[in-house]
């Protein structure tokens, strides 16, 4: 079967998803799938940098900045998230530039880049906690409810199907951006930079410009994911939206799926989100922490035994089976 046919069939299934018969489980299933779309989108945004060796452990900074910007603007000034989102994107782009420019200029790479971004994520989290007078500190903040159940102005809808389609669209948009980047000159340039910066510069690649472009793109998309998540959950919290915990979770999902393939981040996210949901349902409130314990254990096992990710490993396996030449990158 041609890959295109399979893709269209899956897409049709996803579009029809909210109308399939699921009995009383429908809201719950939709809730899980919406979360998978949003986090897969964010994971994809992360992998735009990660696949070129720019391993960021501070994407929580962009996520939190995006979500808090729109939420605070709406709660305190009544500014609609439709206008808040460009503001959030602009702020995130600024933060990304402020971090990425010196990193590129002073050639902060590898471990060091990871730790600098980790510190940035922590700074954002701590600032949110410190400004507790209007951010609500570590207790978080609830979005001011809109007047009606379905408000376009507030981008708040009680009906989960609205968010289902919004998240589906955003996720597809993320895949499109990934594919565009994958087939662009930027990819070749970034891969050259990832191999050897000096050599790349010597053949005329503007190292800083490409790095900044990729970082800003990744950061802005992450912020958009944060805004969408905040609008859907209608609650923001520094622990769930910034800091080390969430930053590591994004990276885990992507590495688990495989960061060098289009669907890797999605496969990884679908797996981690459903796994943690499943464990949460099994253990419920009786054994608090047990679900997370198993989650951590499985992550360690996956990283040790499937180093190139699940989707990546499957992909490699399939390619090895096929005769050389026919196995062009799907």
């Amino acid at each position: 079967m041609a890959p295109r046919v399979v893709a269209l069939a899956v897409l049709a299934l996803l579009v029809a998803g909210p109308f399939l018969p699921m009995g009383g489980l429908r809201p719950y299933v939709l809730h899980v799938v919406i979360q998978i779309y949003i986090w897969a989108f964010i994971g994809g945004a992360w992998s735009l940098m990660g696949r070129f060796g720019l391993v960021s452990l501070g994407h929580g900074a962009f996520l939190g900045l995006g979500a808090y910007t729109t939420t605070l603007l709406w709660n305190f000034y009544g500014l609609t998230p439709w206008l808040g989102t460009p503001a959030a994107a602009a702020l995130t782009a600024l933060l990304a530039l402020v971090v990425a420019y010196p990193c590129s200029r002073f050639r902060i790479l590898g471990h060091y880049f990871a730790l600098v971004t980790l510190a940035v994520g922590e700074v954002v989290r701590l600032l949110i906690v410190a400004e507790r007078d209007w951010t609500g500190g570590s207790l978080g903040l609830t979005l001011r409810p809109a007047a009606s159940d379905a408000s376009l102005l507030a981008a708040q809808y009680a009906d989960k199907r609205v968010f289902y389609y919004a998240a589906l669209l955003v996720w597809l948009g993320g895949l499109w951006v990934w594919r565009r980047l994958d087939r662009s000159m930027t990819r070749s340039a970034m891969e050259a930079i990832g191999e050897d910066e000096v050599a790349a510069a010597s053949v005329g690649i503007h190292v800083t410009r490409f790095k900044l472009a990729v970082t800003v793109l990744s950061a802005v998309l992450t912020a958009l994911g944060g805004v969408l998540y905040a609008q859907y959950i209608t609650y923001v919290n520094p622990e769930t939206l910034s800091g080390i915990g969430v930053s590591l979770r994004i990276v885990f999902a992507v590495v688990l799926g495989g960061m060098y393939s289009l669907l890797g981040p999605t496969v990884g996210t679908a797996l981690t989100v459903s796994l943690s949901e499943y464990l949460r349902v099994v253990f419920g409130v009786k054994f608090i922490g047990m679900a997370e314990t198993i989650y951590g254990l499985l992550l360690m096992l996956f990283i040790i035994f499937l180093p190139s990710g699940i989707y990546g490993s499957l992909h490699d396996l399939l390619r090895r089976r096929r005769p050389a030449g026919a196995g062009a990158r799907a």
Partner: protein
Amino acid sequence: MIEPIFLAEAAVNGLLLGGVLALLALGLNLIFGVLDIVWVAYVDLVMLCMYLVYFLVMLYGWPVWLAGLAGVALGVALGVAVHLLIITPILSSPPINQFLATGGLLFFVQSFATFLWTTDHRSVRLALPIIEVGGMFLSFARLAAFTLSILALLGLYLFLTRTYIGTAIRAVSQDREAMALMGASPQRVYVVTSAVGGAMAGLAAALLSIQYSVHPHFGAAFGPITFMICVLGGLGNMVGAFVASFVMSEIISVGGVVWSTEMGYVIAFALFIVMMFVRPGGILARRD
């Protein structure tokens, strides 16, 4: 305006905190220098040792020093176990996988502690005196912790410079391939390093448990600052990490008094980021 005496008190408390942070940072830095792997879950292992000390003292009525020794023993066991079970299989993996494997350990330890002992804050209650020096109030527990950690650091220094295996550890951290060519077994050096790093974690746990209460998120509170100190001092550079511990602890302590605890950490992290740009090799690195 803040009274100068409070600032002085904060500065002295920062100095005392620095001693314990130095112990944490040097343990992690030793492992990093030799294995070239960051143990993301290092401070979470410290937390496990703190729980042991807490239960031995508060539940079984052990004297603190004996419980502390038990904590050190647990630290050694954990260090060796982590090395054999998690680090050995991923020694040659890409750095991101190494980061994530120990990051998975962080999730595991943190949630397992939540599961076993809930999120309650538990503290070892000891009737230790508060000493007044020139109008400043200093806790005896902190003074004792500071003294012991400085002694331990001295011991580590002697171990690394005066013993055969210590010399081997330093040799591996300088050139891993050459060491293997000389016929030494890197695996043995790795295990000893992890055990020593674990012992430092256990000792730090004993000293921290008399000043801080332990809870499952203890690692999340002290972990990031410990990495920052290692990098600020220069990864693998012991003296640098020692100096960096005091710089960071002073900022946190004084900043915490002047503004708020969070702002103290924000300034410390911001300084870390800026220092990374200015002196990427660490504060004591020679410019080349």
